């Protein structure tokens, strides 16, 4: 894991005046900047904002947006909405796990992909779908998976 220079985040704390009530926007900005919220960063935020570590963890674990694991270059979201599920989303997910050698929520060893599951993406006509970054890939079968990920 890369070493994070904590003082490089100071501009974010300054922006929010180191106020307790600004915990969520602060965490949001930090994650935007470095991609995730490791424990060292949580400790730094705790000290800077005067917010307890338990509270920070409470917030991070409550909002699915926040993550304590580093994200890969690309984020794969496997749709588990009703339509995709019926059309075999589980097969897609299993194949992805196999190909990438990771579980849901994890990042590949080469730091290329992070895989998550999502609720309905609203493109049910193309079910089953996965979304890689902002791009939707539809009408998938397990066999098509290698081809899709090889594009990245």
């Amino acid at each position: 894991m890369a070493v994070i220079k904590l003082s490089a985040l100071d501009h974010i704390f300054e922006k929010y005046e180191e106020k307790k009530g600004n915990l969520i926007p602060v965490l949001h900005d930090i994650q935007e900047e470095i991609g995730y919220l490791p424990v060292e960063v949580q400790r730094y935020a705790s000290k800077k904002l005067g917010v307890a570590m338990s509270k920070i963890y409470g917030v991070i674990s409550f909002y699915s947006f926040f993550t304590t694991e580093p994200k890969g270059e690309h984020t794969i979201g496997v749709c588990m909405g009703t339509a995709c599920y019926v059309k075999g989303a589980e097969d897609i997910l299993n194949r992805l796990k196999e190909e990438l050698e990771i579980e849901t929520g994890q990042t590949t060893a080469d730091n290329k992909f992070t895989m998550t599951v999502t609720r309905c993406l609203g493109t049910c006509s193309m079910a089953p779908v996965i979304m890689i970054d902002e791009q939707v890939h539809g009408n998938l079968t397990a066999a098509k998976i290698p081809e899709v990920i090889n594009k990245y």
Partner: protein
Amino acid sequence: MEIIIDNKKIEVDKGKTVLEAAKENGIVIPTLCHSSFLEDVGACRMCLIEDLADGKLKTSCTTEVKEGMEVLTKSERVEDSRRTILDLLISDHPLDCMTCEAGGNCILQDLAYHYGIERSSYGAKVERRFEIERNNEFIELDPDKCILCGKCIRVDQDIQCSDAIDFVDRGFQTKVGAANDEGLGGEDSTCVFCGQCVELCPTGALSYIPSQNKGREYDFEKTVTTCPYCGVGCQLELKTRDRKVIEVGSVYREGTPNPYGEACVKGRFGYDFINHPDRLKKPLIKRNGSFEEAEWEEALSMVAERLTEIKDEYGGRALAGLSSAKCTNEENYLMQKFMRAVIGTNSVDHCARLCHASTVAGLVKAFGSGAMTNSIAEIEGSDVIFVIGSNPTENHPVIGSKMKKAQKQGTKLIVADPRQIELSSLAEVAIQHRPGTDVALLNGLIHVIIDEGLADQKFIEERTENYEYLASVVEDYTPEKVEEITGVEAVKIKKAARLYAEADKAAIYFAMGITQHRTGTDNVLSVANLALLTGNVGRESTGVNPLRGQNNVQGACDLGALSNVYPGYQSVEDPEIKEKFARAWETEELSEEVGLTVVEIFKQAGKEIKGLYIIGENPVISDPDQRHIEESLDKLDFLVVEDIFLTETAKFADVVLPAACFAEKEGTFTNTERRIQKVNQAIEPPGEARADWKIISEISTRMGYQMNYDSPAEIMAEIAEVTPIYGGIYADRLGDKGLQWPCKDREDPGTKFLHQGEFARGKGKFHPVTYIPPAEEVDEEYDFIMMTGRMLYHFHTGTMTRNSEPIDKHEPDAYLEINEKDAKKLRIKEGDRVRVTSRRGEVETNVRIGERVQPGQIFMPFHYAESPANRLTNPVLDQDAKIPELKVTAVKIEKVKSNKI
């Protein structure tokens, strides 16, 4: 106003909730998430009622009463929805009541019983969803048993103020968790194991690890008594079974020092020592260098004979006694009475000499009374709290929590301490002055206040004397000059001065950081000057508040276990007072000469002092310059030690007498806010151990001076006769909240805060003092300044906490704190073994690196016999109070061994 509950008309005050109104009128509404002293959140939905005005079901805990309101608490709709809620809760709750710790003490179980819910109609919980968390010695958390009522979180955040736990995760996965979800014992956890969460948990989700499988609530006998640790004087409930203390519960009682059941890890978990196998059970007599068990008769006779022999040969002045801040008021009174009336010496002292002797000396001079001026409950009412030389969150944890609570509610904190203590991070102004520069710092604050016209002129004119002299002395102490001495930036000094002076109600709290210096009395006088200057004495939530470190150090002082005063601080040098005691005690032995103090007694051992009688003290660990103490004990002709364990000191004794501990006897302790509280017997003493008051009486009687008391209550009645400030203190008046002295007669309700309208000495007197540096400063060889003190988990010489298994497991090793910069320079790492050497000796200990201490300084707790900090400390004394300079010692540090882990 009038409301109707269950068709019954009820008179109720505005602002109450329906739940409160019902409770006041004996109507029971079930609750799971409600507690009378926590904010109501309406989470559990058990307390639903039906409001007939709109037909809605509402949570009674969050619904305020309204004129003419009509509600039903047991209508079919209400009862049905309660049943549904229980049904849902139980569908996700393990049905393991047979083995659950909370069996018989579980609200969920009680409600299921009441509503006849044998199993959930939604199916039974089959699999665990969470891991049980027990990565610490004290508290287990089983999230599967948690109903998410949140009481634990609210008491943690709003009363204890540790912010250790919160709801984590979301939806069905929600649970109560600590930082990083690593459990209460996790690296980033701020849990201090006070146990208040366990006390409020309505189910078995939180439980005490040490008492698991040792009994359930209904198996225990319960005794409310006073905590034996620090001077806060928490009320605790000892839960006992088969003559053993199994668990310590909270007591919720308005008007006590801990009304919301507060406690700390020591009070909650430090009870193993009571039933420890090493407790002394029979008297011991040393023969040919080793101890042999003896019968009481023989031991008592030997003590009486040897003391009589020494008295006959050398006179009473050749004997001295050390009384104990751990013993009851009644026992301290008897001990000093024995030394004065029977032996004929005033050389009776105790460990207060090493902690607050300078407080008593200083505050008596300034105000006329040496105790905490205000009360613990007033903390929340202060606008500004100035904490100097005190680390309450570790040493007086319940007071520390109250300060944190006050800070949350808007009180501003000024914290001055050479170390960065927990409160520093919450302070408006945090000052880290160099050790031993307190007078300079305080004079600097006074200088700024006078200079900027912030002094309370009216108060100064009406209620004080000697102001002009003070003004002239502090003139030199400009913020810039003070910065040079203390290392604190001038702007900070100005900011702190303004904050304190401009507050309407400002209170000062201090402890050993002020008193344990050769200028201890000067330090205290400076503190008093500051309060007088701003009129912050004699009013609620203000004052000068020394925090006393031992359960009964206040009482031991009050009752004359000091070499210069009789009970109630009546001077031994005053012939009239002497005459009064001679009459009351029917003795001709009383001396008008001030006796020797703790440190002086050891200096004179083998010379003036031939025999010593020690009760419940362990000077080998607690007193400065250990080697000297050990040599002194060796030089004595006769030493008798009365204690609960064979302590490091007791090993030097000729006769050791086994004593009962606090849980095994009756009496009273006086806490730091002058509150005399009951000590109630929970169990019988082990073996043949006896209460100290009985032992002293036996020895006295054998020496020809009859002491025939039937009970401590009888002794207290005698105390009231001869001690004006305790004049109204009788056992039958103490009730369940005790009484605060001064309390002059049976009608007197006691005194919440001192010096209202008039000081005990008439006018408050300014005593200008000039800065004198500590006796030892760094030089080329001894290049670090060592401070000593306590930590949260251990207490004093460790006789109690180190013999309490969970606590000693949690903090087994001695350590020193060093700044990371120094550690780098010395090439030492966390956990390395180092040798610390002073001019008097050396000890080895383990290193903890951090930012708590500044570069050039180290801190060592003094609890550990294997690394005794007091082998190093300097016995140089404050000239007024004879307190040694335990806080500033020049030392050097060398690495012995690297940490292999």
